[in-house]
Each structure stands twice: as C-alpha cells, then as structure tokens.
C-alpha cells in the first residue's frame, strides 16, 4: 500500500538524487521538516517526550520509541515514521492535525531510501520551547483602550468593546427593562420574574436599580438551585448508578443539597474544590455539621457510573479510578487525561506516567467497600462517633447471627448428604422406580361416580384467604407463611384415590400436598416467563394417594403464598398400576426426596455417558457394552457379575461407603473417582434445594429462631443518615504503569503526584499514610495554578453568555478551542482569585457590565461581519433549559412549590431501579423544582431527556440546545403542559371581577413578563371565542388552550 503511494510521489516531482551528498540533503530538506513538525514533542527537551520517541539524533530515531524503531534506513515502506506520516499505520497519524504535505512526505521518503543520512552530529535542537498558553499562569494585562468610553464602564466592557471596535462594530443598544429583568431572573434563579418584581424594577428609577435586582436574586435561595445545577452537570450528578447495574444512589441527594447550599452560601470556589476532592482530610473541625458537609462533598468522587458487576475485581477498581481521574481533571482543570491510561496523551503533555501518578492517589482512596459482583460503594454515616460505633457494633451482631445460622445450615446439610452417601444403592433403585413411574401418564378423572369434590375456599382449617384469586399472591396481611389449608374428607372404603385439581394456576408455583400427615406431593416451582406461558384451565392430575376409611385430612401448603385453584376432587383409583411421584417413592425407599430428585436428574442427563462412574448402572437393560466404560471406577467391577439390579445397587453402596471412608487420599483410582463423584459441587449429593425442610425439627426451630433474631436485629438497625463519599484506603501505595491500560501487563511503579507539565511538583514523595488527595486539592488551588481559576472563570462566563471564552469549556488542551480573548480570560481568572474565589462577586462583575445589559437585537451589518456573535455584538438569545421550562411552566401556573432539598425517591439505598417503566417509584408530577427531581441514569425523566440534559454519566459544562419535534410533542401533549395550562386557566377564571381582557393581560404578564398589545388582546379574545365554539362551549378548555399556547410559544421558551 505504502509503496504505491511513495513511488507515485517520487514520480511526480522530484528528480532522483542518487549521488547527492546525504548530509547536505538532510540539512537542506529534512531537518527543517523535523524541526517544524516533529521535534516539539520528540526531542530531548520535549516535556514529555511523546511516545518515548526522539527524532533529534539518528541513533534515537533508529532506536525509536515505545512502538519500536521509527526509521528503517533504505526502506521507507517499513519505516514507522512514514506510515505515521502517510496515515497508513492505523490510528497512529502524525503530525497531529492536517496530514503532512505530499512534497514533505516525499522528501522524507527519499531521505530514508538514501539510508537516512544525518547531518551535523549534534542533536538537532528543538524549536525554542514555546509553552502552550494554557500551561502558563494567567498574566495580568492592561485594560485595552477603547473609543466609546461612555459605554465601556466596566473592565469587562473594555475587553469586549476593544474587539468590537477593532472590527468596526458597535455593541447593541441596552435591553429594555422587562427583557433585562426576565433575563437576569432566569439566569440567576431559573425562574421567570413575577409581575410584581417586574413592576418594582420598572418603578425603581435609581441608577443602581439593576444592581439591586442582581443582589436580590443572588440572595435568594433559588440562586443555588439554578447555579448548583450548573455544577451538577459538571459533577455528572445522578441518583442511580446506571451503568451495568442500575442501583439507586439513595444518598446522592445529600451531595446535591451540599452543592446548592455551597452556592447559596457563596462558598469560595477553592474551598469548594478542596472539600470535594479531600473534604475528609481537611483539618478536623469541632463542629459535627462541618464534618458531615465535608464528607458529603467527597461524594463528587463517588457519583460516577460504575461497572458494579465486573467479574474481574482489578479491572473494576481501575475503571472506577479512571472515572475519578478523568472527571476530576476535566471538571477542575479542563483536561482530558483518560487517554493516558493506555498511552501518552497524543496532543497534550500528559505522559502515561502522570496518569498513573494520579491514579495511585485515587487507588489509595476508598470509594468502594468491595469489588464483588454486585459491588458496594462506601458511604459515610453522618452521626456522632458514639452513634457510628453503636451502629458498627449492631451491624456486627447481625452479621454474627447470620454466620451462626449459616454454620448450622452447613452442619445440617452435611448430615443430610452423609446419610445419603451411606445409601447410594437405595438411591439408585429409587431413581429407577421414578423413571419407570414417570412413563405412566395419568389423565385427570374429571367426573366419576362417587367422586368427592371440595371448593378451594371451603377448607376446614387453615390460614389461607377464603377467597383465592387468580394471578394474585393470596396472602393475608399480618400472617406469615407458610400458608396452608386442610380439607377433611370422609370415605367409606380405604384404598388408593386419585387426587385432581381444577383450574390450577401453575405459573407462580403450586402447593405441597400432605395426606393424613404424610407428604404426598412436592409443589412445583414457579415458571420463568409467566407472561408468555398461558395457564390452561381445567382439571389436572396431582397424585394417587392412600386414604383410610373414615375421615382423612388433605393439606395444601405453600411457604409464602396460597396458589390459586378452584376445586379438589378425590375419586377411587382405577389404574392397575398407580404411578407414584418422587416424594412417595422416596418415602418407600427411605431416601431424601430432594436428593433423590437430584439423582434422577443426574442420571437423566448422564444417560450412559461412558465417563460416568455410574455407567454400569446407567446401561442396565440397554445394549451398551461394559467395555466402553471410560471411568477408573470400571476396575472396581472387574470380573464381577450381577444377577439383579439390587445386587448391582448393593455393590455400588458398598463401594461408595468404602470410598467415603477412605477419603480423598485413597490410592485406588476407582475409589478416588467415586469419592470425587460424591463431592462434586453440582453432583447429585450436593445439599438439595430448600434443604431446610429436611432437617431435624430441632435444627429447623433453631434456624427459625436465628433467622427471626437476625431479622429483628436488622430491623432495629439505627437508621442514621448516610452520604456517599470517599475516605483514605486501607492500602496506600503507588500504582504501576498499566501497559496499554491493561492490568495484566504492569510496568514500573510511578510515585503518586500530579501533572508535571503544569509545574509545582510535590516537594517530597507521598508517604504510606496519605493517599495524596489533600495534596492534589491544594496543588489545584495553589496560587498561580495555570488552569483551575481560568477553567472556572470560563465556565461562569459561558453559563452567562452562552459560550465560553474558551468555547470548549471542558477542554483546555491542544485539541480544545483557543481562547477568543485570552487577556479577558486571564483578567477574569485573576479577578476571581482576588475576590476570594467568590462566585457571587463574579456574577456581579459580569452582570453589571454593559455587555450583559445589551439587547439581543439583530443587526444585519454585525451579523454579516460576525455571524456567530463571537465578539458579542449583542446578547445571545437562548432557549430555556429543561429545568427552566418545567419550573417556568409551574411557576407561571402558580403550582410550583419551593420545598428545598431531600429525596423523593421511594427506593431504598442500593435497590435496583425498577426494570420496567411501570415501576412508578418516582413522583415526577410533584410540583417541586426540577433540580430536586431524581436523575435516574438510564431511565431519565422524559422532560430532562427531551430538553437536552447532558448524559448524567459524563461530566459536561455546556448543554446542547436542540430544536426537535419531540419537544413540540412535549408542548402539545405532555402531562406537565396539560396539567399546568389547566391550573393556570383555572386561576385566571377564578378572578371573578376581571374582564376577559384583564385575564389575558394577567396571563401575558405572568408568562411573558409583559402586557399584551391591544391587538394581541383582540386576537386572544377571538381565539377564545373560536375555540369555545369549536369545542362545545367549553370555556375552561378554551382558556387552557390559550394558556398552553402562551407557554408553548417561542417567546416563552427563548430569552432575549
């Protein structure tokens, strides 16, 4: 592939220069290419040396990097350098960005063909190390000079105006007051202003009227609900795990409430950061609530989506660590470091080493209690130490009870199997009997002379409900299982009777049947896929049972519910050979029915397999030859013959007893095979399902007691508030490099640390008593850190103005966007820190500028010059976000409740989110603010989904703002819209004194923050009249439709 292209290139332009002096050729043609395109990342001075590859000396180039030699002299086709340059090396494409010019590639090709001669033996110097802008600390710059000094009253304005003036553009005129207060109110609180608030602002003629509005909004608790939500996007907040196993994060809400409170308190951002990364490690506080708050803050690290059912625990751990590293770096530093898990970052100076330096920090922290399937995440108990200790002691007690029960269970199981092992022969004979009798099909009698019938509900004694319903659990409140019912039936003649059942519901499992205290039939287990397994009504055969003359008791029993049927019928047996079921046969042979069933099952499956130790038994009566037996057990039967099955069974019994006695260390291979068979994990001698029923009565009682105690103890567990969060791990250690990201191939250990290219490495190595999270948090918030303050200042700007100064708000790396105005960004970043990392101060700085107060008015000339409004010649129009739409609608209707905090999830912690949308465990219709509506990953509330909530498993600092048909469907048909347009209509109609025109005015002011024009009132009146006529004079629905139209209108959904 390569050859063709290279030759074509050569043929195109360049004369073959076979004799040319190699050194001169290199200096003239090759070195400039290397310097220009390669050495920035591939020389001795590169930080880091990408891929370990240096191209600054011939030796280094021949040696190559982690992928092997870069150059094979004389063979460009084999040279990795050329493959990378020509993009024929799969994903490896170099240099980054557009493909190298064909002419340059041809020169490189020619050079390698020449044997890759080098010039000056000195290492080729890399171009003067020019640091990437984002990795240098923000620099103070003088405010730019502007012409229109009257407009540019704030520093922000100076920056913005300077760029506009440079392009010959002017800022848009100021927005009118109604627009401005609507903009600011939505912006800071996510809600529309009330008509009263609008009026007050209109009436306030003081020069700082708008400043007062901003202050009022910043002081409102609604502010934290709006701006906390911005941060929750970055923190990929959710109330369920939502990756593979969707377990409920019942306590995630505490982190959410913490964030909202932090914004409302104007917690300095550096502190906010430190608490989220290392709240648990900050100097201890006397105040318990402060401690709870800090623990809760570390929920940031724990909220990610995790693969909780991963069979490989090491992979699970490293995946969780990876998510933490990636989210932390992206959220606070705008860096994408995830790729360095497998290889050095291709574009940013983040070598794999740095990644594992960070990974070591998180791996040394405790996020999870375990890495089992399904894994359990760590939670803090938010209670005083004494209570926590009490809780731990209590939980240990519960655990001890459980262990006691488990120990007893396994003792009893061993007894059962030990007894069975003594009687293998009896099991074989019983199993043969089962096989024989199963071949007899018995039809239900349906009707017979002398038959006795009993209706299901007519039992003489029992705790089952009298009315037994189809497809219901049929339990009685307050009554614990087993559920049972006894029917007394009298017959004149003793003998065998056939028991049939009418309309028996089988799908959910059937009941055990006992006759006169003797167990006669084991109930069937429930059927999977019941939905698709239709029940067939009518009579069905249950068992042939012995009755005595006079009164008999038929007892039906089920452990947890009473299965549906309508009638029982007993009729004298007419079959010549009445077949018995497993329970009855087990009784006859004095073996355990559960173990017998397993033996039958085993024989059925094995079915003469030559490797079976029971082969001799399995082929009895068939044509198969004993010669074919392929088990060591064969030798135990050599030279013997058996005249009857009983003889053979007897021999098996003896041998198995012997094998059991000799144990695992027997020297006889035959006995060893038998011994192994007895102890096969899934063999017939395992403890039977539901083994407890076969234990001695005393053991059963003891187990019931232990269970009950454990249950009560557990129920009495102190219910203390908990929060997800991270603490220091039990094992604190550096992590090794995982070559290609795989934990199966480990490289050298990397001391825990940070990203080296960002400077300020740790003064000394981290010890084994600290994970390094606190140091990491301090490093990120240290004075002069190049990224932290810039990234958050840029986020704040982006959330106000719709686009960041660095448009890729989550990516400040080389592949991210360049700042449109770095001096402005740096000014904001520095200002932010100067003002004590105060968010609210920043809001004032931005919102009190004339830039923020511009209108969104269209200007053809400006649009021509700057169609994307990058220069901010006007305030961008924006669509309301999902929460603003729902909250706005409810606020306008008057139904919105301003309850703060808490969780409305009805699930328990760690419970699975209902697998069906029928689950209905979340009351989405409750008119609380949307920020308090649970974010269930993978089953997102449809309003959030329709209006572009970012995937809550991924950190995201900017939202899409799509315009799609499903949103129109939402406006037309959603319950939110239908409910609240009606609430609004009713509230308008209740205003008895008002004229319809006044009602329309009120509706406009509530929904759109402005009065309607006279024409609009006329038009609305016409519409209402028309609608009422069309729809049978339904005035209420006419008004609903009018309100719906206002709420669905673009004027409502878009902010100017």
């Amino acid at each position, binding site marked *: 592939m390569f050859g063709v292209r290279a030759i074509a290139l050569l043929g195109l332009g360049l004369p073959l220069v076979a004799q040319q002096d190699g050194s001169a050729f290199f200096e003239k043609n090759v070195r400039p290419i290397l310097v220009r395109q390669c050495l920035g990342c591939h020389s001795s001075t590169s930080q880091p040396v990408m891929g370990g590859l240096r191209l600054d000396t011939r030796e280094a180039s021949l040696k190559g990097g982690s992928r092997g030699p870069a150059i094979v002299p004389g063979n460009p086709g084999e040279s990795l350098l050329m493959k990378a340059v020509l993009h024929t090396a799969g994903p490896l494409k170099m240099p980054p960005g557009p493909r190298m010019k064909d002419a340059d590639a041809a020169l490189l090709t020619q050079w390698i063909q020449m044997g890759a001669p080098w010039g000056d033996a000195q290492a080729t110097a890399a171009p003067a190390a020019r640091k990437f802008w984002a990795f240098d600390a923000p620099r103070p710059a003088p405010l730019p000079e502007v012409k229109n000094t009257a407009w540019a009253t704030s520093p922000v304005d100076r920056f913005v105006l300077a760029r506009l003036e440079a392009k010959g553009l002017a800022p848009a005129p100021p927005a009118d007051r109604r627009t401005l207060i609507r903009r600011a109110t939505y912006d800071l609180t996510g809600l529309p202003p009330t008509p009263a608030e609008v009026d007050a602002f209109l009436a306030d003629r003081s020069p700082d009227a708008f400043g007062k509005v901003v202050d009022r909004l910043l002081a409102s608790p609604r502010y934290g609900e709006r701006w906390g939500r911005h941060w929750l996007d970055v923190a990929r907040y959710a109330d369920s795990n939502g*990756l*593979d*196993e969707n377990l409920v994060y019942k306590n995630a809400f505490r982190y959410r409430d913490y964030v909202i409170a932090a914004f409302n308190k104007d917690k300095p951002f550096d502190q906010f950061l430190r608490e989220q990364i290392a709240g648990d490690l900050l100097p201890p506080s006397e105040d318990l609530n402060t401690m709870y708050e800090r623990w809760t803050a570390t929920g940031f690290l724990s909220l990610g989506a995790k*693969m909780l059912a*991963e069979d*490989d625990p090491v992979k699970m751990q490293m995946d969780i660590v990876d998510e933490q590293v990636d989210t932390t770096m*992206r959220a606070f530093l705008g860096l*994408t470091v995830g790729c360095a898990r497998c290889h050095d970052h291709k574009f*940013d100076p983040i070598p794999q080493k740095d990644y594992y330096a960070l990974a070591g920090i998180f791996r040394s922290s405790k996020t999870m209690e375990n890495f089992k*399937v399904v894994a359990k995440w760590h939670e803090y108990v938010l209670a005083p130490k004494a209570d926590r200790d009490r809780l731990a002691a209590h939980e240990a007690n519960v655990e001890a009870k459980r262990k006691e029960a488990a120990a007893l269970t396994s003792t009893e199981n061993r007894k059962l199997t030990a007894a069975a092992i003594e009687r293998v022969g009896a099991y074989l004979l019983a199993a043969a009997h089962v096989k024989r009798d199963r071949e007899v099909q018995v039809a239900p009698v349906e009707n017979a002379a002398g038959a006795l019938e009993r209706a299901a509900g007519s039992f003489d004694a029992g705790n089952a409900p009298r009315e037994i319903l189809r497809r219901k659990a049929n339990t009685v409140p307050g009554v614990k299982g087993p559920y049972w019912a006894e029917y007394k039936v009298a017959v004149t003649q003793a003998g065998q009777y056939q028991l049939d059942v009418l309309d028996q519901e089988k799908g959910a499992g059937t009941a055990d049947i006992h006759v006169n205290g003797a167990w006669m039939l084991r109930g069937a287990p429930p059927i*999977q896929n019941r939905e*698709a*397994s*239709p029940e067939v009504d009518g009579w069905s055969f249950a068992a042939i049972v012995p009755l005595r003359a006079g009164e008999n008791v038929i007892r039906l029993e089920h452990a947890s519910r009473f299965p549906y049927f309508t009638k029982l019928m007993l009729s004298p047996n007419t079959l010549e050979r009445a077949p018995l079921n497993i329970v009855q046969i087990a009784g006859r042979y004095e073996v355990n029915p559960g173990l017998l069933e397993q033996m039958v099952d085993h024989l059925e*499956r*094995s079915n003469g*397999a030559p490797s079976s130790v029971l082969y001799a038994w399995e082929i009895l009566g068939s044509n198969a030859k004993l010669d074919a037996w392929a088990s060591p057990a064969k030798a135990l039967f050599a030279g013997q013959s058996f005249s009857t099955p009983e003889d053979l069974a007897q021999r098996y019994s003896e041998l198995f007893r012997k094998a059991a006695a000799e144990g695992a260390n027997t020297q006889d291979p035959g006995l060893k095979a038998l011994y192994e068979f007895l102890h096969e*994990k*899934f063999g017939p001698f395992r403890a039977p399902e539901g083994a407890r029923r076969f234990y001695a009565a005393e053991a059963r009682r003891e187990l019931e007691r232990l269970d009950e105690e454990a249950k009560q103890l557990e129920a009495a567990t102190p219910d203390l508030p908990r929060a997800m969060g991270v603490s220091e791990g039990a094992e604190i250690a550096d992590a090794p490099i995982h070559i290609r990201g795989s934990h199966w191939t480990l490289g050298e250990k990397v001391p825990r640390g940070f990203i080296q290219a960002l400077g300020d490495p740790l003064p000394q190595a981290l010890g084994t008593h600290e994970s390094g999270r606190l140091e990491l948090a301090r490093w990120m918030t240290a004075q002069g850190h190049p990224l932290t303050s810039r990234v958050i200042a840029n986020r704040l700007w982006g959330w106000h103005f719709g686009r960041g100064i*660095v*448009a*890729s708000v989550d990516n400040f790396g*080389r*592949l*991210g966007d360049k700042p449109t105005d770095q001096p402005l960004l740096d000014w904001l970043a520095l200002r932010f820190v100067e003002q004590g990392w105060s968010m609210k101060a920043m809001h004032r700085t931005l919102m009190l500028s004339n830039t923020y107060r511009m209108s969104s*008015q*269209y200007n053809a000339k400006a649009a021509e010059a700057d169609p994307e409004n990058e220069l901010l010649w006007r305030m961008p*129009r*924006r669509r309301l976000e999902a929460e603003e739409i729902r909250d706005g609608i409810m606020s306008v209707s008057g139904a919105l409740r301003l309850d703060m905090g808490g969780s409305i999830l009805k699930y328990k912690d760690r419970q699975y989110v209902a*697998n*069906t*949308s*029928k689950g209905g465990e979340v009351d989405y219709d409750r008119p609380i603010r949307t920020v308090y509506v649970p974010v269930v990953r*993978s*089953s*997102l509330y449809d309003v959030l989904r329709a209006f572009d909530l970012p*995937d809550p498993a*991924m950190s995201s600092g*900017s939202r*899409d*703002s*799509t*315009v*799609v048909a*499903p*949103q*129109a469907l939402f406006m*037309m*048909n959603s319950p939110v819209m*239908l409910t609240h347009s009606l609430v609004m209509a009713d509230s308008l109609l209740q205003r008895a004194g008002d004229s319809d025109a006044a009602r329309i005015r009120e509706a406009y002011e509530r929904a759109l923050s402005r009065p309607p024009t006279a024409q609009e009132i006329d038009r609305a009146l016409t*519409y209402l009249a028309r*609608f009422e006529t*069309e*729809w049978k004079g339904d005035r209420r629905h006419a008004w609903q439709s009018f309100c*719906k139209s206002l709420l669905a209108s*673009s*004027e409502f*959904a*878009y902010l*100017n």
Partner: protein
Amino acid sequence: MNRHWNSYLNQTLSRRELLRVSSAGFGTLALAGLLGSERAQAAAGPLDVKAPHFPARAKRVIFLFMHGGPSQVDTFDYKPLLKRDHGKPLPFARPKVVSSETFNLLQSPWEFKQYGQSGAWVSDLFPSLAAKVDDICFIKSMHGSNSRHGGALLELHTGSDTFIRPSMGSWITYGLGSENSSMPGFVTICPTQSHGGANNFGSAFLPAPYAGTAIGSVGIAARDARIPFITNTETPRRIQRVEIDYTQELNRKQLEATGPDHALEGRIESFELAFRMQAEAPDLQDISGESEATKKMYGLDNPITEDFGRQCLMARRFSEKGVRFVQVSHTYKWDQHTNLKRDHQQNAAEVDKPMAALLTDLKARGLLEDTLVLWAGEFGRTPTAQASDGRDHNPEAFTVWLAGGGVKPGYSHGSTDDYGYYSVDKKVHFHDLHATILHLLGLDHLRLTYRYAGRDFRLTDVHGNVVKEILA
C-alpha cells in the same frame, strides 16, 4: 451561543454554522473527514439523508436482540463431542475471568439436524427458522470481552464495556441520517431497562437526535408501546390544529420581532412535524391493516408468539418506511443458569416463528435485499454445566446470525473448539461485527468519527476488521 439541531427538519445549516458548532466544542460533527467534501455541503439537519462513504449493500438494519445470552451449543453450533464426552471434565483451561464456577461438560438436551441446500446445523429449538437457513449467514466464532450482562450488553450495543459510548444505531443514523422525516432514524421497541438500560440505545456524546427513540419498554406489551408524548388524549385533532395555528401565529410574530433566527424558524417547523408525527407514528404501529395471513405467519394468533411477533411485524413496517435502525428485544429471558431445558425451549418457541416470518416477509417484499437483519445475544453459554441443568455466561464463544443486506446467504463463518467453549478459527469480535455492519451500510468504520473531549471517537474504538468473507 447555543447549538440548534433542527432534527427531522430540512432546515439547512450552513457550512459556516457547522464550523461554529465545531468551534463551540460541545462535541462536533466529524468534520475531519467531511470538510471540503460534498458531504459537508449537503449536511443539513442532523437526520437528513447523508451519502455513505462507498456504495452500500444495506440501507437499514433490523436487530433482533436476545437478552440474556442464548446458548450456542444448544442452537446453531453443533458439537457432537459434547454429547460423547458428557459428564467429563473440560479437557482444557477455563478463561482467567469467569462469572461463576462451572462443572463438567453438559450435552445439549436437543438434537441437531442439517437443513437446506447449505446444510446448516440447527437444533430442534428452531424448527421454523431452520427452514430459512439458506437465507442466513451464521458467525459461529464470535467472542467478546465481558462475562457479565451489563458489560456485555454495552459491548454489543456500543463497543465499550468500560464507558458510556454511543450505540451502534446512533452511529449509523449519525452516518446516514434517516429516510423518513416524520419518524426518528433509530427506534428501539420495548428495550431493556437493565444492564446498561438506555445506555444501550443512547447517543452518549453524539447529539441527541441520534439517540434511539424507545417505543415502550420492557414489561410493556408490544401492543401498548408508544413514542413519548405522541398520544394526544385530550383534544380532538381538528381542534388541536386550531390551537397549533394560534401557537404558530405567536411564534411567527416573535420571529418577525427578533429578526432572522435559525432556532426560532426551526421551532416553527418542529411543531408542524410533530403534528404530522402524531398522525403517522401511530399509523405505522397500527397493524390492523395487515392481512390475516400475515398476522398468522408472525404468530399473532398465539399467545406464545404474539408479543415478539408483533415486535417483528412492527419492525418490518418501520423499515419499510425508512427507519434506519430498528431494534427488537426479546428481553432478559435467555439467561439459563438453571432450567436450561425448560426455559430455552420456551424462549425459542416465543421467537422462532416470528423471526422466520420476518425473513419470509422481508424477502417477499423485496426488502431483504437491502435490509440487514442481525440476530445476537450479548454472549453465549458455557458447554460446561452450572448446577445440573444450566450453563454459565460465556463471552469466549457464541453464534450470531445475519441475513439480507449484502451478507452471504447460506454461509457459516468461523468455528469454535470441539466443545464450543472458545472461538478458534476466524474469530470475530464485537468490534469486527460492528466494522462489518458499518461496511455493509457503506460506512468505513475508520472514517466514521466524532470529535469529543479532544479525540476522534469511533464505534470500533481503535479496533475492528471488516469480516470480508461474509460479504456476498
């Protein structure tokens, strides 16, 4: 400024706007391969039809998803030695990571026979499908990397068992757009909510219009499944038109007041489209117009096959109307750690007839030519026994099949070891399957990229080879 995706609209976004979108860095269209090409000029609404990279063999996909992990050795991968060596220990090592302990070899409870001209082996589980083997291409050497449902489902659907990534249906609609402007391009009928749930049909970092639209959900009968908010319960359609006219009047006035604004223009169109969708989508789901013979063929007359049959029939109707990717789910039924015999029998009975009917129906309508049908579970099962009548998860080997849309009919690709535990010959990973599916649709999996978080992502990550041998 914000980005405006005028989904399902013919609204033209200028190339400049696309650039703006890219500079906004919210995650951008794969401009690397597009800019300067005609495709970029043509790229308008996100769901507008886009030309493939090269001529396509298939225009659309129907994915029959068997959730739980059907057993290859009990369905299509016939292993006579498993019968011979039943009860013996597995004669080679198990994988390093397994989901549970398994014991000795367990023979299949079903007999296998050869069918058709191609002589494909099929077990007695699929009598109806067996008659269709000459239209089917089996891949018997599939393997994946994850032994748990969640990871494996995500791997099958998105290619990643580690992170949340766009679903293959999203990638395909992103690459090709949708042929029906009144319907979403990617529809999933009664999808699972567990094991990754919506992540299996989500668009992750791709723009929202590429996400699968769920019609119903697991646990909802196919006959009751609906698109969200599609049902207008309150207002008669004629009156709703009056209402929308009024809303639109307000919207147009607002647009006049603001001056040119793509989003506001798009919004006006979105209401018209929604109004059309509201009429058309239920029509598409309404199968009352289908002939009795067709309904019977899909098994709608039998409670066992009714639900899956209805899903398959709906899938055909959606495909016929140009929906790009339709997924049908037989949800979380195939996980037989126990009761293999009873439950695999039941599961197969539910899907066998409807699947055969779908192939017959597509062929009769000439749709099989350019419709790719994929049948797959998230993994296979061990040939060794779990408990006495069950098999554990096995991502090391399993069978999927494809039909129509440019795959070799009556062909079987790759093989497993003597017992069906590991794929050994011509192994096909999920990434390879994805690469092949994209290839059949005319998309080069190396070129179908999307820049997110500073990297060009692909459905196949850094892997994937087109399985050339199965191309017709």
